[in-house]
């Protein structure tokens, strides 16, 4: 069954792969993005997937964004909270602003976006919410107290909302990828990416498509009994 899907941060990296995969699986997709208009235009030209611009850390903007999408395309039945940002720094050097920005974009956005789509999902008795968590939210990482706290918080959010959504046919799950070969990683110094690869039993980074594959699994009609779960995919780097 075709379900309208909304992916935040969906014009680049993992989010773009998720949007493409959902579209290929027959789900009409709409993506959100925040800053890079040229990238968003190119993505829409190539895929035909509409891209709407708003800041997911702004609750009012999230409500308005969802309203605009639902007015044009119908109810959002699948929400993928993928938008994320990093602002790495040693704890002693991390500024209030670096903390706030990462927690707001990565975690507050999950609250705002889920809140905007949840009442409709409840009413219709069906919904799928998938968070893109992170291995670093499970295992911790130096220079990332902000990112790790936000991603770990996502996992807590998932489990709590899963409890509430269960009786309404809404599942809430998380995919927790390890290091994935995205534009973010390609900007890192090679000696660091090589270290990451050496630490991974599979000896490579993940591919964006592999994360998308897990999202597809979770949003399926048949995945109704899987809720509050985390699918970890990290090539064996972190097993818990």
């Amino acid at each position, binding site marked *: 069954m075709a379900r309208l899907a909304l992916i935040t941060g969906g014009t680049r990296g993992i989010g773009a792969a998720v949007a493409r995969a959902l579209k290929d699986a027959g789900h009409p997709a709409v993506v959100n993005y925040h800053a890079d208009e040229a990238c968003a235009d190119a993505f829409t030209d190539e895929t035909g997937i509409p891209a709407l611009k708003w800041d997911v850390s702004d609750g009012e903007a999230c409500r308005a964004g969802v309203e605009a999408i639902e007015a044009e395309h119908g109810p959002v039945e699948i929400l993928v909270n993928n938008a994320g940002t990093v602002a790495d720094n040693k704890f002693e050097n991390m500024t209030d602003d670096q903390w706030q920005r990462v927690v707001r974009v990565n975690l507050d956005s999950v609250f705002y976006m889920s809140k905007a789509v949840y009442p409709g999902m409840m009413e219709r008795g069906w919904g799928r919410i998938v968070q893109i968590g992170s291995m670093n939210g499970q295992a911790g990482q130096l220079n990332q107290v902000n990112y790790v706290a936000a991603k770990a918080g996502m996992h807590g959010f998932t489990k709590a909302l899963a409890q509430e959504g*269960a009786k309404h046919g809404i599942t809430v799950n998380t995919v927790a990828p390890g290091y994935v070969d995205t534009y973010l990683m390609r900007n890192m110094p090679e000696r660091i990416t090589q270290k990451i690869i050496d630490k991974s039993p599979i000896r490579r980074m993940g591919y964006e498509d592999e994360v998308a594959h897990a999202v597809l*699994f979770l949003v399926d009609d048949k995945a109704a*009994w899987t809720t509050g779960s985390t699918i970890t995919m990290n*090539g064996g780097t972190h097993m818990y």
Partner: protein
Amino acid sequence: MSRVALVTGGTRGIGAAISLALKNNGCQVAANYGANDEAAERFHEVTGVAVYKWDVSDFAACEAGVAQIEADLGPIDILVNNAGITRDGTLQKMTPDRWQAVLDTNLGSCFNLCHATFPGMRARKFGRVVNVGSINGQAGQYGQVNYAAAKSGIHGFTKALAQEGARHGITVNAVAPGYVDTDMVRAVPEAVLEKIVASIPVGRLGRAEDIARAVLFLTADDADFITGSTISVNGGHHMY
């Protein structure tokens, strides 16, 4: 690509659903069973899946069983360690026999069958091992020190073998079902079962097919970055 799959305890309950799902997905499936000839024959008649009888707690029998299947169908690419039994009792009343039977069948079988199939998977640089764990191995359960220890052991086994298999194209993962509507769960007294269902957020027991699709997901050729992971499928009953 047509893969040969072995599912232990594959003629009833969750195992039967896994055997069937793999077959419908194009695999050649061998379903092992331990005792119930009648159920195995019926399963074979209905589905056409080849059935093989041996005791998975017996190392030599596992070697012989694998050799027979490989002679009949070809090398085993996918191994699903699903066979399991319960012999519940509080610690005080639990006899060494009950402890040993559950440990040998539920956990020893994983060793026996991985031992028999791993060298071939290594040589061919492809393998998918999925161990069926349990919510009770994650959360513990009154009256099940044997079952919880064995299932918890499966999760440890999974993570260790994942480390060894990673560089050889072999992934090792676990699926941890909650309470699924099978003969094993139907044997639970009704009053107890009612309480269990009441504590499952999704509000129902799982179906064997709910578990089978998680196994399909993990055994796919393109799931090669997922290793050492556990997918919980429990209706939100236990989130960790």
